[in-house]
């Protein structure tokens, strides 16, 4: 599903280059639940951002479902964004001015989905995550765990094939973290959504079926 070939990311420093990622080769198959681990500054977030099309690699090729992403038109990339990739962030990144319901609805608006379908999809997700009662609250009225739940609901409402999660439980205490990870596991197993998460936690990493260790821009295992 995701194929990275000799992907590098660097910044020019003086005469040389400061490598964040160096010649990464990585393949993630459909239906996998991959955890990327590594110390701070090892480049794991950058790797995730490249997979999510938020950053462009300096070198190398990126194939998404066999297609060269780096050769895609802006329009196609946006389509990919809207349709196939969902994001979950450590800091949740909900829009403060919107209610839970509206936050979840927003990605569907960008996909031009009809009003009635939006309603039913959002209602489904709310129901599934048990947050129907909270749909009219604003993010600031929710606990961290609840916010992340909304963040995940927002990520899956547009039915993506991949969810990229950047330390999704980094700001949560362990009970909340556990339920979030179980949710990911469920999404992976039941809905067959490919999940790539960056994490510090060994416990969280065990929820996935593969662990990739990254250090100083290289994959270690």
């Amino acid at each position, binding site marked *: 599903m995701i194929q990275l070939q000799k992907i590098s990311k660097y910044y020019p420093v003086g005469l040389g280059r400061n490598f964040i990622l160096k010649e990464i080769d990585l393949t993630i198959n459909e239906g996998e639940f991959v955890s990327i681990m590594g110390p701070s500054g090892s480049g794991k977030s950058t790797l995730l*951002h490249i997979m999510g099309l938020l950053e462009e690699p300096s070198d190398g090729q990126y194939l998404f479902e066999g297609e060269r992403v780096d050769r895609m038109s802006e329009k196609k990339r946006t389509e990919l*964004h809207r349709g196939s990739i969902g994001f979950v962030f450590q800091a949740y*990144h909900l*829009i403060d*001015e919107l209610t839970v319901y*509206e936050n979840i609805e927003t990605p569907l608006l960008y996909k031009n989905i009809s009003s009635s379908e939006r309603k039913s999809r959002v209602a489904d997700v709310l129901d599934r995550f048990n947050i129907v009662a909270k749909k009219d609250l604003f993010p600031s009225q929710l606990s961290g765990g609840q916010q992340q739940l909304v963040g995940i609901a*927002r990520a899956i409402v*547009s039915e993506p094939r991949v969810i990229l999660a950047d330390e999704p439980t980094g700001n949560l205490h362990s009970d909340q973290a556990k339920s979030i990870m179980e949710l990911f596991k469920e999404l992976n197993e039941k809905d067959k959504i490919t999940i790539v998460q960056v994490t510090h936690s060994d416990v969280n990493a065990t929820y996935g079926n593969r662990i990739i260790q990254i250090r100083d821009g290289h994959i270690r295992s």
Partner: protein
Amino acid sequence: MMWNNYLITSTRSLTKRKLYTLINIGGLALGIACFILLFLFLQNEWTYDRFHKNANELYRINLKYGEIDQPLQDLALTPSALAPAIKSFPEIKAQTRVYMPNMQVANGNKSFNESRFLYAEAPFFSMFSFPLIEGNAATALNGPNMVVVTASMADKYFGTTNVTGKTIKVNDKNYLITGVAKDAPSNSHLKFDFVGSYSSLGIEDKWGSANYYTYVQLTNKSLDQSLHRQLTTMVKEQMGAVSDKYTFDLIPESIKDIHLYSKAENSVEPGGNLTYDYMLAITAILLLGIACINFMNLATARSADRAKEVGVRKVMGAVKKELLTQFLTESAIITFFALILGITVALLCLPRFNDLTNSHLSFFSDWKLSIVLLLVFIFTTLMAGVYPAFFLAKFKPVQVLKGKTPINKGGGLRKGLVVFQFTAAAFFIICTLVVGEQLSYIQNKNLGQERSHVLVLNGSRFDSNTLAAFKTNLLQQSGVEQVSASYDSPVSIGGGYGINRIEGKPANYSMDITAMPSEKDYLQTMGIKLIAGEALADADIQDVLKNDENSKHHFYLNESAIKKLGWTPAEAIGKAMSLNGRNGTVKGVMKDFHFASLRQKIQPLIVFPEYNWFGEILVKVNGQNIQHTIAGIENSWNSYQPGKAFEYHFMDDDFNSLYKAEFQAGKLLNTFSSIVILISCLGLIGLAAYTAEQRTKELGIRKVLGATTGNLIVLLSKDYIKLVLIALLFAIPLGGYFMHKWLTGFAYHTSMSVKIFMITGVAAVGTALITVCIQSVKAALKNPITSLKSE
């Protein structure tokens, strides 16, 4: 549906940041309100006399005359003989003379002095587009003692507009009302309440004096040059021998140019002032611009707040176009509310503004305002919204979501805009101060004659016997100190005379001079000082009144006149001279006093007693219990002028009316510079609040490290003060230059002192400092623990 989402985010974001929203909407609304009012005013100014269907073909003939090699007089008035003489010109389709005296109009007990009383010939209502509600435009003025009244006058005298066929008394003569006209629009230079038929006046056609307006309608609009040539030839024939000594030019002037461009004096209505109009137009655009700048500045400054939203939306697949639409929607919402508020404010302020500008503007006069409002809406939305929208839409989601907010981006532009705002504000302060100084200079200027406590009554209907009796009666009243009379108003003497013989000069000597007939006690009443010669005795008046070849006149010349004649005051006394055929001697020399606008240098002047006609009766009162004194004067008036309305005003009013344009400009400047300053400060409050908020953490750290509150206030304020100082560097030379040019329009003016610039500096820096400090103090007083914990 997407729109829904935009609207929701926008309105919630706006209600959440109340200060920001208030500043934006408030500032914009103020700017828009001012813009609307100024637009209405300028629209009125710039459409003067264009509403006439024949506007392109309508001309007024002006008269330019004077001695060869001397400055020429430029008059809107022409001799009464002109119109009949040009009747047969092929260029002319129709013509009318117009005469504008003050008339006493009465219906039963209702009696008033009417100053907007025109006399015109029959073609008047077909040449000009003043529609009649009743009556026939073609025949309404075609016989003597006919009058057309305006709807509001019909209402004033009869309480109904259905008055055709009724009679009304005009100076005690019965006039038949032949029509009712709509009130003349405010953008007509011919404003009238009554139009009487010219034939009622029974005036013979003379070339000797110029007291009548001549309006013509050409057969084709491009014929004015050809008409001018014809007029020149005709004048040459008429003048014959004197044409090598005097120039006498008759010039057609398009009716559309009269209000803004005419230099001819004594027009029906004083003209507009193009310079002031341009200044107001610039002010209108500046005000709107400055309000837009607030929006731009605040939107970019607080972009950090919105950065996360932009990032999230981009991650969810929003493209730039969608984000632009979103932020422009937000800008449109703000502009919309500001527009509504601005229109409301403008509507509420319109009566005040009409007072201020002495006009009758209305909101609903035509559709143009709605078009302009639509344009203002679009312009403001785009101007205020486009830059912030691009600025925000440009954010890279990764950076934003990583927590790097591009706080300092756009700082340079922001600073530039603040400098621009404060340059404008300081410029307005300078203008306001200088205009204010000049106005107070004018008001406090010692004219060399009395102008306070002088009551002015209408003298035009007194013969000399009644006047003498009235005067004696008045002088017996308590509170009345002196009584006299004069031809013109003492503060604007305008009579053009000529000295045609004078002792000690060659026989063909002649000199143009301003002169005025007056009553015996004129100089004493007006407190004009003599530097040589003596006051008039009763015997002197008898000399004048003989009215045959033995009559002897007595002349008072001012200092400027004897200087021009090359005499010392002592030499002048007793010199024989002749003023337009009046033979006599110089009786005294007056100390120079201002008898015209301070724009002009004091010119040579002669005041001489002559009892043919007086326009003004001057009553010097002692200023104690004025109401009682006036009541006494009114009693006396009613016994000498029974049935004639008693109307009075003070000489100060006459004096002030010479500077109407300046007082008006002064008041407008006061108002609008306050608003410019207010809007600029609003913007500064917003900016300062956001800087303080953004630097909360830095301030916390500094405080922990030992900075005092004072240190922090200085830290936060100094950047803004620097900007204001830079603005002053631009504003001072700019304002100084413009105001210097304005002041040189006055022969007598105040000097622009350093004080003005110092006050400007203190005011600009002071307001900025106070504005910024309020925010800085709030930030500086925060407990550092709270600000650092939140990280």
